[in-house]
């Protein structure tokens, strides 16, 4: 089965199948293009039918969704209404205790559905969740009912069910579920999980919703109206959908088809590049590098061109608002694109460096760069390399700068320990860039060192060349500092980088020199750690620079003389606020609609989209304030207004106001509202200020703003704004900075550029990084402003680094686990060393308690923080209840019912705490009334608060509440009347103090994780030391054992230890001594035996030719004595025989000599095809033998001793030639694959018998009369030692094939 899979895989990757796939894909691509074209024509002609069909599909889809949504809600509410227990308590307890109803609701929740219980007289008796908008009791029917209720921000689906017991109604249960957000607000406080959001996102259509029992006639024909009917078949609302248009449909279809086509194109290009890559394995390394690099980047740019994968995977990681840089012409236009590019970069750098500098067995390769006789060229290349390294370093710094400055991601947000997905992608990308830099520079430095070394004398120490390389680069670094106007990194940082690069290069070089093969996998953790060391400090510094830039930007906003945008905004907003909708509502007599007019118009206007602090106030024609909405402002409400002016003309102006001691510019405007008959029916007044200054005054309400994340402030340190006049501090937002503090000396002199000055300002021992900048003349003559932030301490840095170290640690553990799993599935197993196991054991042993401790501490700290918050809320509610009772005499219900928002704000301002006051269970006043006006906060007391404070009469209660997806704590305290009864409740939500809470979380994280960073660091250092110490004797023993196995019995072991390991070492030493003695004896015996054997063999071999020689000489002497006639002829014959035998003797001596003598092997690059050709030439004089040579085009360069391999081929070809009797053929072919070359030598000779074949590689075995039988033995020895294989296949009388496989370079 496995074999089948492998065969199938081989087929898949074969050239033929790639070609077939490409053809199929091209056909599919054309088919897709054709479909798009003809479909376009078809749709164009039949658009009416198509659009009708689309409209029907949309309508049906939405109606089905609504039915499901309604029935789900109904079932949940019905389950509550049919509760036996509820019916019982309605029957028994309705008039006695309401607490039981609250408790019932608390224990019977219904998911995201808000519940209300009413009695048989339709009076609300308990509730759970936001009660707004208040339900009209006429909707509580004796049968089930369903309708949509529209509130200020949200619309709800309401389901009411009568609770029936013994055939009579005992009460009603009402369920409210979010249906729609009425206004385009989008922040974390708005719950966007509504019914309408589900289909707008799914169907990708623009939709608007209207409540009511008839659909609007105002809608034009561009809208489809989808009627929503309840389960009583009654129309309860209409959803208006934008009609599909031909152009829109065409664009959508085109985009879909384009995505599919892009994927086809991508796969085709991938297959072609893959095919090319397979060919690359057989070509020269330099061309391989060049072609691989071109292919890698072509592929990357194809992705950019096709806008992949961002056009298919539309997630935040491909969002340019997170990060975008024009670097590389589009390869870094989002975090995801940057990540892809860095992966390609790393692969590219790896291909280059591995193939040129770091590849194992490349001690010869490095000679490429040994330009022994070209000193000037060598020097130029060394200098160029130094420049390249410095450019690389600068490029790295520029990349880091871009990833921080061209990004809205917060690299140093300490409130969360684990970074967001987008930030994680950026961090991984940065690490890959650092790793690429390290690999590239290491390769270049090794090359430089080789070049320098080639110019030095051979007896020079290896360190000399490294010292020279270091000096050259350092001089270059200094020159860069002098010559380059913006080197991005200062001299110290550059030297730090260079020292690290030199260190790692020397290490890699040392490994390669001493161990021949670089254990690149083993070195990879070291590379990664060093990359992190290079990356994090630079990232930290750049992030801090980015924070400073933001502060400088904020400074320019603060002193901006005139903001034409805000003036324009006021003009534009006034036009919108006084439009037809305002006219319609003001003309109507609906008090609720009129009271909500300011909020509704604000929410629909440009103001809500821009999010400035502002006030919108509507006046009726009598000049009476009928509707107000404030966001981030309260104090201006009390200002006197000229009502006559408001009703007459439109006017826009600016004015400076002092707020909280600071000068703030306000943009004010008003406009009359005129109906269709030209009669003034009211007016609108609005005023707004820049949101930027508001940030520093802590009164910015972000709940009602879009894009709440739009802030300048670094989250880990709160900013302080101070104003100086005539050299003294006059205003500040901090309570810790004393008023009248003098302006630091020398500011004026240092501010020569006029852009402001950064200074470390020490106030009461605390260090502040402060930016001083001059106020504008118009705004404040001669004044200075200062924005300060507390300097981050050591703990902050520890925390910053620990967070990222933990992130990278988790990342590598994940990668390690995945790789191990993949290898395990592929049947490979890794075994770690004893030291590694020991190290992991130490790390886990120390980390496990640390992690448990960290978790517990965090939990404890969080619990303590909550407790502390609750305690603070308890104290604050006590102070506020006392204060308002004392200041306004609120001791009876009547006085409380007259308590106003402004009174509330006064107390809140004085006590610096925002709060709400409830009259019995309903909101009476608030220092932040806009939250209630917008119905973001429930105007009714929460279920639990009502239960605990009002019904159970607790003196304080705290609970966690949610607004959107955001949770916060609220503290409640009752307002007790003189007679001891509860007349109201004061609540303080932590909602408005989120920045303070974030700061507390930050401080806590920084405090805790700083300590953990030290503990983690110590654990790693101590663990490594201990693991080394314990495992060192074991490693020494292992090395000694390895030496012994390789025949080296001279070992050096320290046996001074007095423990078991020491005894083991001593026993090992003794064993080695015994082994050495035995070995010496054995060698002696073997040598003697060998000599005897050799002598015997030599004697035997010499004896063979000596016999004919002796016989010939005897025959000659006898003939001479006999005086035979043809003596001369005989002499010729006999001497020839003797000479032949002498030749045999000479060859015997030569072969013995070859076998015994092993000259030092001289390894070099050898082209097998060239060597074969040289060998063949020697035999081509044989006229009867045809040489058939077929060499493939691929490279067949191996690392070998050229003479040795040539001898081997000569031996084999000679055997082939000698095996042919008469005419025959010798076929020689070569074929190279990814990493091997295969040489086949085939002859049509007599072949080899099976018996002979079994002994063919044995020394001294031969079937020839004139040979020693050492030829093939030598050939096999040569091939084996080159890491190759030799196989001989032969058939008697048919021929022999010798197949040699050698590893390619």
């Amino acid at each position, binding site marked *: 089965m496995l074999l089948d899979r492998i065969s199938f895989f081989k087929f898949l990757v074969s050239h033929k199948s790639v070609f077939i796939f490409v053809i199929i894909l091209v056909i599919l691509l054309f088919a897709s293009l054709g479909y798009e074209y003809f479909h376009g024509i078809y749709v164009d002609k039949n658009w009416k039918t198509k659009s009708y069909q689309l409209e029907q599909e949309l309508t049906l889809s939405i109606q089905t969704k609504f039915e499901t949504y309604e029935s789900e809600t109904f079932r949940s509410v019905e389950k509550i209404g049919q509760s036996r227990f509820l019916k019982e308590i309605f029957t028994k307890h309705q008039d006695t205790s309401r607490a039981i109803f609250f408790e019932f609701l608390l224990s019977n929740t219904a998911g995201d559905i808000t519940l209300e219980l009413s009695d048989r007289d339709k009076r609300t008796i308990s509730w759970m969740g936001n009660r707004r908008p208040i339900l009209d009791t006429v909707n509580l029917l004796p049968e089930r009912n369903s309708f949509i209720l529209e509130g200020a921000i949200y619309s709800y689906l309401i389901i009411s069910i009568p609770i029936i017991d013994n055939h009579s109604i005992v009460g009603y249960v009402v369920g409210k579920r979010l249906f729609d957000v009425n206004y385009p607000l989008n922040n974390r406080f708005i719950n966007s999980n509504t019914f309408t959001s589900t289909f707008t996102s799914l169907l990708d259509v623009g939709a608007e919703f209207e409540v009511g029992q008839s659909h609007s006639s105002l809608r034009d024909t561009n809208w489809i109206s989808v009627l929503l009917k309840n389960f009583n078949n009654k129309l309860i609302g209409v959803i208006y959908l934008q009609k599909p248009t031909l152009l829109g449909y065409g664009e959508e279809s085109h985009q879909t088809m384009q995505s599919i086509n892009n994927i086809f194109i991508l796969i085709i290009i991938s297959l072609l590049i893959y095919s090319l890559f397979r060919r690359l394995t057989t070509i020269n390394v330099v061309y391989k590098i060049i072609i691989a690099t071109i292919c890698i980047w072509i592929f990357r740019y194809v992705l950019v061109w096709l806008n992949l994968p961002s056009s298919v995977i539309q997630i935040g990681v491909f969002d340019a608002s997170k990060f*975008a840089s024009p670097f590389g012409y589009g390869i870094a236009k989002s975090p995801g694109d940057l990540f892809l590019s860095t992966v390609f970069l790393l692969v590219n750098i790896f291909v280059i460096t591995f193939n040129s500098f770091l590849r194992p067995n490349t001690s010869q390769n490095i000679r490429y760069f040994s330009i022994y006789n070209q000193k000037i060229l060598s020097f130029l290349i060394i200098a160029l390399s130094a420049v390249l390294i410095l450019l690389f370093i600068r490029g790295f710094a520029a990349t880091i700068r871009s990833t921080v400055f061209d990004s809205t991601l917060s690299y140093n947000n300490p409130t969360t320990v684990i970074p967001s997905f987008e930030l994680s992608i950026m961090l991984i990308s940065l690490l890959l860039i650092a790793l690429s830099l390290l690999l590239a520079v290491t390769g270049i430095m090794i090359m430089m060192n080789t070049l320098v070394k080639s110019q030095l004398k051979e007896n020079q120490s290896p360190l000399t060349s490294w010292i020279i390389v270091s000096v050259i680069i350092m001089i270059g670094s200094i020159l860069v500092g002098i010559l380059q106007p913006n080197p991005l990194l200062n001299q110290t940082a550059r030297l730090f980088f260079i020292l690290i690069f030199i260190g790692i290069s020397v290490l890699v070089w040392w490994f390669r020199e001493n161990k021949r093969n670089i254990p690149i996998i083993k070195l990879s953790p070291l590379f990664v750690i060093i990359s992190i060391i290079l990356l994090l400090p630079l990232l930290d510094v750049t992030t801090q620079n980015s924070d400073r830039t933001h502060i400088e930007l904020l400074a320019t906003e603060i002193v901006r003389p005139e*903001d*034409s945008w805000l003036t324009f905004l006021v003009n534009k907003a006034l036009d919108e606020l006084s439009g037809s909708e305002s006219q319609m509502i003001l003309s109507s007599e609906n008090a609720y609609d009129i009271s909500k007019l300011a909020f509704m118009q604000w929410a629909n206007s440009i103001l809500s989209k821009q999010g400035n602090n502002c006030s919108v106030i509507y006046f009726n024609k009598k000049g009476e304030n009928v509707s107000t909405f404030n966001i981030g402002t309260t104090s201006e409400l009390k200002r006197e207004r000229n009502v006559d002016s408001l009703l007459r003309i439109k006017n826009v102006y600016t004015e400076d106001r002092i707020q909280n001691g600071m000068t703030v510019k306000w943009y004010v405007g008003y406009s009359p509202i005129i109906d269709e008959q030209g009669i003034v029916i009211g007016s609108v007044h609005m005023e707004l200020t820049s949101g930027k200054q508001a940030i520093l005054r802590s009164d910015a309400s972000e709940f009602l703003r879009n894009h709440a994340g739009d802030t300048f402030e670094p989250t880990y340190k709160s900013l302080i704004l101070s104003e100086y006049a005539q050299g003294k501090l006059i205003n500040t937002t901090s309570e810790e900075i004393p008023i009248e503090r003098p302006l630091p000396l020398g500011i004026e002199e240092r501010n020569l550029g006029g852009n402001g000055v950064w200074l470390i300002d020490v106030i009461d021992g605390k260090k502040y990084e402060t930016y001083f900048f001059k106020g504008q003349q118009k705004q404040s003559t001669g004044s200075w402003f200062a924005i300060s932030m507390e300097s981050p301490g050591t703990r902050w840095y520890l925390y910053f680094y620990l967070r990222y170290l933990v992130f990278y640690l988790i990342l590598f553990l994940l990668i390690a686990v995945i790789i191990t799993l993949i290898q395990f599935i592929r049947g490979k197993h890794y075994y770690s060393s004893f030291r590694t196991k020991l190290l992991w054991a130490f790390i886990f042993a120390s980390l496990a308690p640390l992690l448990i401790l960290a978790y517990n501490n965090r939990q404890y700290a969080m619990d303590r923080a909550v407790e502390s918050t609750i305690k603070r809320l308890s104290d604050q509610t006590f102070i506020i209840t006392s204060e308002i009772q004392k200041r306004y005499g609120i001791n009876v219900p009547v006085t409380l019912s007259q308590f106003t928002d402004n009174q509330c704000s006064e107390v809140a301002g004085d006590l610096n705490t925002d709060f709400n006051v409830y009259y019995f269970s309903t909101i009476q006043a608030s220092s932040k009334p806009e939250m209630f006006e917008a119905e973001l906060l429930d105007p009714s007391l929460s279920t639990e608060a009502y239960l605990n404070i009002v019904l159970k009469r607790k003196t304080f209660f705290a609970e966690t509440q949610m607004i959107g997806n955001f949770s916060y704590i609220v503290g409640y305290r009752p307002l007790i009347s003189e007679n001891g009864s509860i007349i109201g409740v004061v609540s303080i939500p932590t909602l408005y103090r989120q920045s303070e809470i974030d700061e507390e979380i930050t401080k806590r994280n920084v405090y805790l994780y700083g300590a953990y960073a030290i503990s983690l660091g110590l654990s790693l250092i101590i663990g490594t030391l201990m693991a080394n110490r314990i495992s060192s004797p074991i490693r020494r023993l292992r090395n000694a054992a390895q030496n012994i196995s390789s025949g080296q019995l001279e070992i050096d072991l320290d046996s001074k230890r007095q423990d078991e390991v020491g005894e083991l070492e001593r026993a090992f030493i003794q064993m080695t001594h015994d082994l050495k003695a035995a070995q010496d004896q054995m060698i002696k015996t073997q040598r003697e035996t060998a000599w005897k054997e050799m002598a015997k063999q030599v004697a035997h071999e010499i004896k063979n030719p000596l016999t004919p020689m002796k016989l010939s000489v005897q025959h000659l002497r006898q003939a001479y004595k006999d005086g035979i006639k043809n003596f001369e002829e005989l002499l010729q014959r006999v001497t020839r025989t003797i000479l032949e035998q002498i030749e045999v003797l000479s060859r015997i001596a030569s072969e013995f000599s070859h076998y015994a003598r092993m000259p030092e092997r001289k390894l070099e690059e050898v082209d097998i095809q060239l060597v074969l050709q040289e060998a063949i030439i020697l035999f081509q004089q044989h006229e009867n033998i045809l040489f058939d040579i077929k060499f493939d085009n691929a490279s067949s360069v191996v690392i070998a001793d050229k003479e040795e391999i040539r001898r081997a081929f000569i031996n084999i070809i000679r055997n082939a030639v000698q095996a042919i009797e008469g005419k025959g053929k010798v076929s020689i072919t070569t074929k190279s694959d990814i990493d091997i070359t295969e040489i086949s030598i085939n002859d049509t000779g007599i072949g080899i018998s099976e018996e002979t074949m079994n002994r063919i590689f044995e020394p001294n075995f031969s079937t020839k009369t004139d040979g020693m039988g050492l030829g093939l033995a030598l050939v096999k020895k040569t091939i084996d030692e080159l890491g190759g294989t030799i196989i001989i296949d032969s058939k008697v009388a048919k021929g022999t094939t010798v197949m040699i496989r050698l590893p390619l370079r």
Partner: protein
Amino acid sequence: MRLIEIKLIVYIACAVLLWEGAILSQEKDFSISTNQFDKKTEKIQKQVSIVFNDVESGIVSNNVDFVAKHFSRQIYVSLRGAESGYFSMNQATYLVENYFTVRKIINFKFTTTKLSGEVPYATGGGYFTLKGKQELFQVYISLSKNDSRLVITQFNVY
């Protein structure tokens, strides 16, 4: 030295120079000759006009480079139905480009311009199609002096 060795070295050098070129391209200074801005109001107004014309033609021809070359290093961008906030010049370029890639401009013209003062600005409107629907859009841009250059510090589409 063999030809092959020279090729390898030349290749690495070219690769690095290309890389550096790519890095430098992001820091390309699009500055207009700043000397022209000094003293004379007319010249300033002329330069302001050039910026406004570039922006107008950039929007009409959907060529963001015309607009982006006048962006300040940090710019406030507010795009209706999309991103809003302070972004770097590089980021803002992509955001505006992406915004107008999916919206096909039919026409656009600045209707109000203020060429003088410390904060020159221009507003105007036009129509684009989005998903086949024609929509009205308005643009507001304001300029500021930054290191003696007049650059766009605010770009609003509302």
